[in-house]
């Protein structure tokens, strides 16, 4: 960009938000360059970081970008694993963090209307202090990640067995389109935004903005479903192999899933489980033979040591103890019949040395940093490859990823979560790497590409794919659908300003 144009754009942006809320300093450009976590992501660079506080300011910024054809990347926390908010083509980085208000909570219709930059902490804090009877669920992402991006990119929470992925929780949106027009979706599109209680029974354009990685506009408001806070109890599931564990999850879902009171059903393999406890190889408080898992196939080592590779977690919800008794009895029976076992939360902790009990972190309702585990075993780097999968592919996906990881002596973490009453699964293969070790980073990069291939070849559909993976995902897509999507994107963003270099188009 030429110097004079650059100065002019700065002046325009400063006139919109004030000079304190726009930066062209190298410090902001550096910190906003990427997510700082991924191995495969390449840092980008923006020219301006702008922080609007109102929808009107957002509108003016978007109009400016459109007029001058400047790339615009929208960000809340910039911690997305796919690097979706990495500014790949320069231009404006729109930091929405000051648009962080909970505008309305409707107790009867059970939804919250929030601004585009609201974080999980903002929303959780607001609800727990003012509406303790309502919950929004807990994501495993960090406390400062945005609710809106999580919903738009199909994240999930500890109520996903009931409510599905978070895109299914959206009642409606307010979006500033690349042209500067403001559009509402869901029933709010029909009533002028007086209420936001559901999607609309008539034509509904919410889906135009879901899964498009910020390429269709800037979401400035979102209505998200809330749920009643139920009394619940937590149980850990254990199975010798991941395959058997998944079969147990399926049996639970077929027996009723949410009707049995189960609100969340997830699991992780031994490697993830240990790392979630914040363990580093040399620090395992377990038998020596387990420690070798970090240089070999942890599942085999676990098996040889007589330990399990599948560690599940579920919550069971019930209004009374009697109801809980009935539900739990049935759950225990199904689990036993499937060859797995249930470890009750408090019972499980009893096996640990007393001096460590006080320091044991717990799974329920954890924000990301609960375990201190996302320091990535001291290396500071981590990346996952996630996919929506049918039941039959979960164990295959895991086993194939693990096999590839073992070949290069990396340990593959794996985690799956059952969604929407058991209608589909989400699976994620995770690697940790040392940010400062180029060899380790390179090995991780190659392995992530392998994981991507495995997913595509199996027929899974990638979730939050990295920018480099979208090309292979596009190849997987139906040609007619792809063309239609291209046309829609062009129609809405004729100048291609929104998040260029990112996503499918």
């Amino acid at each position, binding site marked *: 960009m030429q110097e004079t144009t650059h100065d002019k754009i700065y002046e325009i942006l400063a006139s919109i938000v004030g000079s304190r*809320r726009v930066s062209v300093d190298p410090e902001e450009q550096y910190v906003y360059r990427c997510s700082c976590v991924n191995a495969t992501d390449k840092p980008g660079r923006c020219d301006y970081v702008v922080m609007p506080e109102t929808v009107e300011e957002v509108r003016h910024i978007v109009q400016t970008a459109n007029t001058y054809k400047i790339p615009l990347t929208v960000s809340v926390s910039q911690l997305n694993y796919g690097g979706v908010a990495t500014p790949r083509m320069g231009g404006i980085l729109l930091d929405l963090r000051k648009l962080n208000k909970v505008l309305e909570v409707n107790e009867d219709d059970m939804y919250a209307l929030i601004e585009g930059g609201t974080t999980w902490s903002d929303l959780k804090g607001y609800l727990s202090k003012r509406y303790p009877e309502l919950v929004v669920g807990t994501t495993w992402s960090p406390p*400062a990640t945005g609710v809106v991006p999580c919903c738009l990119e199909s994240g999930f929470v500890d109520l996903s067995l009931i409510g599905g992925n978070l895109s299914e929780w959206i009642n409606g949106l307010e979006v500033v389109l690349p042209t500067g027009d403001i559009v509402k979706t869901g029933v709010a599109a029909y009533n002028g935004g007086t209420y936001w209680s559901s999607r609309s029974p008539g034509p509904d354009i919410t889906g135009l903005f879901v899964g498009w990685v910020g390429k269709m506009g800037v979401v400035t408001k979102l209505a998200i479903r809330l749920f009643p806070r139920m009394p619940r109890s937590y149980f850990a599931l254990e199975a010798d192999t991941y395959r058997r564990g998944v079969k147990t999850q399926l049996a639970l879902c077929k027996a009723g899933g949410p009707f049995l009171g189960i609100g969340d059903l997830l699991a992780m393999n031994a490697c993830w489980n240990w790392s979630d406890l914040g363990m580093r190889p040399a620090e395992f408080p377990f038998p020596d033979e387990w420690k070798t898992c970090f240089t070999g196939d942890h599942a085999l080592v676990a098996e040889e040591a007589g330990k399990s590779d599948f560690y599940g977690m579920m919550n069971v919800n019930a209004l009374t103890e009697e109801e809980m008794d009935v539900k739990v009895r049935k759950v*225990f029976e199904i689990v036993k019949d499937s060859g797995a076992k249930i470890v009750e939360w408090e019972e499980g902790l009893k096996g640990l040395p007393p001096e460590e009990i006080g320091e*044991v972190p717990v799974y329920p309702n954890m924000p990301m940093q609960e375990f201190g585990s*996302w320091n990535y075993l001291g290396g500071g780097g981590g990346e996952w490859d996630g996919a929506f999968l049918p039941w039959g592919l979960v164990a295959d996906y895991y086993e194939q990823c693990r096999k590839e990881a073992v070949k290069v002596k990396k340990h593959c973490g794996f985690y799956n979560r059952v969604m929407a009453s058991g209608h589909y699964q989400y699976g994620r293969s995770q690697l940790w790497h040392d940010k400062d070790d180029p060899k380790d980073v390179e090995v991780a990069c190659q392995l992530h590409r392998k994981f991507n291939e495995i997913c595509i070849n199996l027929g899974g559909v990638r979730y939050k794919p990295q920018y480099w993976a979208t090309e292979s995902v596009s190849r997987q897509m139906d040609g007619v659908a792809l063309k239609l999507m291209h046309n829609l994107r062009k129609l809405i963003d004729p100048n291609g300003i929104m998040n260029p270099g990112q996503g499918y188009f």
Partner: protein
Amino acid sequence: MSEKKKYPYVMTKDPEYYAKKYYVKNIPLPGRGFYKKIVLPTIKDYERCREPEYYQEILKMCIKCGTCRYVYRDWDRICPSGEYGGFETYYLGGKNQLLRGLLRGEIKLTDSLVKRFYHCTLCGACQVQCQIAEIHNNALEWLESFRELAVEKGFGPMPRQKAFGEHITKEHNPYMESHAHRLDWLPVPKKKLPKKADTVFFVGCTSSYRQTNIAKATFEILKKLGQNFTVLEDEWCCGSPPQRTGQRKIGEESAQHNLEEIKKTGAKTVVTSCAGCYRMLKDDWKNRYGLKYGFKVVHTPALLVDLIKKGQLKLKKKVEMKVTYHDPCHIGRHMGVYEEPRELLQSIPGVELVEMPRNRENSWCCGYGGGVKADFPDLSLFATEERLKEAKTTGAEAITSACPFCYRSFLDGIEKSYPEYKVYDVVELVRMAM
């Protein structure tokens, strides 16, 4: 009943039930207010007061996840610098990235980079919230040592901080006042002070020149109690303002001078009502400057609570007042002193103590520290007003604290936005009750 024994689950509506039950162990580090509350493995111990390079391995672990922006598990905002500055670069996560980038040669040391590090009260609230063990225990170390590095390379401190540093060298206080007037607040002639005493009352610059009410109240309390004490004839700045702004050499010189002066009195105890002086004398003099001394350093509220327990101090007069207590960062998060000032307030007949939502290690900073009051007055006032707003939500008619810096901040905030509100130092209330 037998069924319940078979399935001894816990039913809870409280989402934090298990966290509260199993995640509560706090292990204080020696002499610090920061706590290890992190999981099973033994974390690596790092030395304190080292250069930024030393902490590189820890910086690598930060992924700017934003946990440092909120009170952990309560989700209130906690970082004045970030909330006012707005951009990620003003939060700990952003600063960690910048420092790592600098140490890796990816960005340069510039005025604008340095400014972001000085735009911080060094309150340490971010550090407390971070759940990565090494950051949780060490973040303030590199935030402070970066300032020393900036000064060494000629990029720091900020202009007014530099000016007060120079003034401290000449007149031994950061307030542009004459050293000759340091003891003007004394309610007795200077000559009447004994040369030798069991206890030295270390007054500090803020109480000597600005909040003389705190100096006078402390002096009168000690006098009334019949303590064998004195005030240094030639007290200099404790070293806190220059040290916190990276001007280590000035801080160290002041500390050495004061140490010699204290030794001359033969005192076994040094008592101070200033939170900043307390941290300097008790922690920085020893652990940062390596000074050796045998006397005890006591913060006035702790001394008074001890005397109450021993029956040597009896508070009889009623002070009918509903108050809230603000934890000064220098004694709270930095030194782990939370309870004594509260105990003291609760010992005063008529005083009703109510807590603000953000209290103890989760206190919102008053906005004074780290040289911010001098060079970033808007940030400072923003922080002060936010705290006063919180104090008012408790229904308390006054905010109390145990630090002349906090007192000054609140006084300024009250003057600007809440003229009907009141501020007291805890020693003032004790004085009223005697």
